[in-house]
């Protein structure tokens, strides 16, 4: 009986691990560290607090959904990446910056990696990727976090 229970628990844990890996936030070669992932709840809290210092939030995907975010367009497109570079060139290196896309699960998103690589290559010191591992609907809109009109 004990063995059966142990096997059952092992299978259950294996299933849970598999399910959680479907929307993993961190791949082996991703150009960000776990510490650079910003929880949506944390950003929402800051955006909802007018007294809190506000980061510069860039949408580097299809649409600037998040309140106050600046629409750059998909960073996979060289022209849009240049637009982002132009805006970043005017900023001090320690500016608090957040980028997000949210089209697709992180593993498939074509936009987050070019943007994060650009920030790294430009030697910014205080930038984060909004942790939207599934997409901006599930991880932001469905939670009623603040949005642009």
């Amino acid at each position, binding site marked *: 009986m004990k063995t059966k*229970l142990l096997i*059952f*628990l092992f299978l*259950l844990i294996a*299933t*849970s691990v598999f*399910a959680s890996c479907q929307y993993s936030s961190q791949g082996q070669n991703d150009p960000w560290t776990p510490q650079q992932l910003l929880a949506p709840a944390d950003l929402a809290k800051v955006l909802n607090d007018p007294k809190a210092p506000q980061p510069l939030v860039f949408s580097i*995907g*299809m*649409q600037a*959904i998040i309140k106050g975010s600046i629409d750059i367009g*998909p960073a996979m497109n060289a022209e849009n990446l240049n637009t982002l570079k132009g805006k970043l060139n005017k900023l001090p290196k320690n500016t608090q910056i957040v980028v997000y896309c*949210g*089209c*697709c*699960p992180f593993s*498939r998103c*074509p936009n987050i990696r070019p943007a994060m690589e650009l920030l790294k290559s430009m030697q910014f010191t205080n930038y984060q990727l909004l942790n939207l591992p*599934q*997409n*901006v*609907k*599930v991880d932001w*809109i469905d939670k009623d976090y603040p*949005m642009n009109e």
Partner: protein
Amino acid sequence: MRILILSIALLLIVGTISAQSTGLEPGNKSPEIKLPNSKGDTVSLSSLKGKLVLIDFWGTWCAPCVAEQAELAKLYNKYKLSNFTNGKGFEIYGVSLDAKKSNWENFINTNKISWIQVSDLKFWRSPVAKTYNIQALPFNILMDGNGIILAKNLHGIDLEKGIARFLHK
């Protein structure tokens, strides 16, 4: 102790299942959709009453959705004039979650997509994404001539099997 372990196990199972549920199940009526096509004319889902219909939620920014369009073209050409046990003819009602009209229109024209295509160009903010509780793309619904959901999220060989099983024999 054993009861405690089993309770935790049950909670984990329920959590995993509910996280994957989309809320619309076979046997339910498919909610109405009324959206414009690329010419600006509104096409309603209910106007397809009487046909077997595949509602295909997609976007040009979604790589697996784009990859699936060639397969949809094959199925459309193969079955559009077929008779089904619960519908006469097969139609695809493509709902794009694109944000830019030019991307959507260019894709339709370049790939010569001949089935219905509609979009409100609101990306993930589209009200249909909420109505249909879409968690990820691609997503689809197969419904009968009365708008009743037959199956959801069928892809690849499962999609063709899902359509073919309703062929009139």
